[in-house]
């Protein structure tokens, strides 16, 4: 159970910040601002991970999401012309909102309806070494597959953005 006072307070503050930032992503007008709020939401989620006693995942979250993915997104946004840098919605925003609301309702219903078997375990403490063990022993095949996936993604990204030769400039 999470019952350290500071951590409880931190959880609710972080949760409120994260949800607020996520809402800003949905409703802010400029795309660049949306990306920046998304980065802030990623950092808030990293805080939630720390609350959930996953320090390694939290740091990786900041490194990958706030450090790399958000930067990549800003890069992609800057590659688009200024006129396209609007965070506007399509005509489908109303059905999308309804669908999202339905999904939320289902999730809430399931999470409150299920009888979770709560284990009363202490904080995990340092998880990096244990995660490393887990990745290289029971999960070694997915780990290798993930590396192949990253390789494929890298090659794919290069191929997609490569300037084809012979084409006119």
């Amino acid at each position, binding site marked *: 159970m999470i019952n350290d006072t500071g951590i409880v307070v931190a959880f609710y503050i972080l949760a409120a910040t994260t949800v607020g930032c996520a809402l800003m992503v949905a409703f802010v007008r400029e795309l660049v601002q949306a990306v920046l709020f998304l980065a802030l939401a990623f950092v808030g989620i990293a805080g939630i991970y720390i609350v959930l006693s996953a320090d390694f995942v939290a740091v990786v979250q900041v490194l990958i999401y706030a450090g790399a993915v958000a930067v990549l997104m800003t890069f992609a946004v800057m*590659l688009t*012309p*200024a006129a396209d840098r609007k965070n506007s919605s399509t005509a489908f925003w109303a059905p999308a909102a309804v669908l999202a609301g339905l999904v939320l309702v289902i999730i809430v219903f399931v999470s409150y309806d299920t009888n979770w078997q709560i284990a009363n375990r202490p904080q995990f403490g340092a998880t990096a070494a244990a995660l490393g063990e887990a990745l290289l022993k029971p999960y070694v095949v997915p780990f290798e597959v993930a590396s192949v996936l990253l390789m494929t993604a890298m090659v794919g990204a290069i191929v997609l953005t490569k*300037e*084809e030769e012979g*084409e*006119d*400039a």
Partner: protein
Amino acid sequence: MPIKSEPVEVNIGPQHPSTHGVFRMVARIDGERIVDVKMVVGYLHRSMEKLAEERTFTQNIPFTDRMDYLAAMTGNLGYCLSVEKLAGIEVPERAQYLRVIFSELQRIASHCMATGAFINDCGAWQTPVMYCFRDREKVLDLFEMTCGARLTTNYMRIGGVAFDIPDEFLPALDRLVNDDLPYRFEEYEQLLVGNEIIMMRARDVGVVTPEMAINASLTGPMLRSAGIAWDTRKADPYCVYDRMTFDIPVGYNGDAYDRMLIRIEEMKQSLRIIRQAVHQLPDGPHKTDVPLAIRPPAGEAYSRVESPKGELGFYVVSDGGPAPYRWHVRAPSLINLSVLKEMTVGQTIADAIVTLGSIDINVGELDR
């Protein structure tokens, strides 16, 4: 198909750390590449050529200080030469030697400044500027010793020079020329010539081809870097330059790096000239008697000197009155700048700044 991006118009100047004054360069930039450059000059226009028509020939000398304020001596000299040519005034030997000494000292001071500012444009954090200023200060000390002014010297006069050198001048000059500056120039060469970063930044940047140089009538280090051996001191010797032995450094590639090398080498050659001039310095008057309100006969004259920036020409027309009827300056800064567009289009912004720094313009002379 490359990504289509919108070119952005960026004003480099008139208020910019590396435009060397109030010069404005409107660059259209596509990403980091420059696609078009428009030069806007005239922010420092002080209407000197028109003002000069209201002043006597002698009163116009201070204007020449304030044109290229980094090379006031050569400005003075060029103007005085043109008036002397117009009025047919003989200049005493000693004055001629003094003129050579001071214009070569001025060349050292100006090239120091140009080299330092050029490396600063390459992005060094003020250090080379400080080193070059240190040596320029010593030259300016000599000016102060002789004529009381450091920057706007107003030293040359029609018919000679304003003051004879004081007694302590020659020992100080000897220390500077033989003991101090040669080692400083060695230091510059060690620091700058082999420096890989400077090579990467300045090699093949701002290239001037010989055709471009001749078409645009470039002069000075700009012309010599393009591989054309031309120097007014050799081509049309004035004062006593025909009695001096010195070499003209000429580059191969016409890039910014060559111009830097040429400037450093020219400073060394200036030291050579100064040593010879001091050795040959005769006694005698430093000035012929010329009336203050000199009235040259009606006519016109053009005389040119090799200023640190290039060929500085003065065209004077007299109608027999005390003031010039028309006065025109062939300012090397302006003419050397005219190829800026050809030099910078296709380069990055960083290269454009390096190119501009290597041209060594002076906005005071550019706009007059």
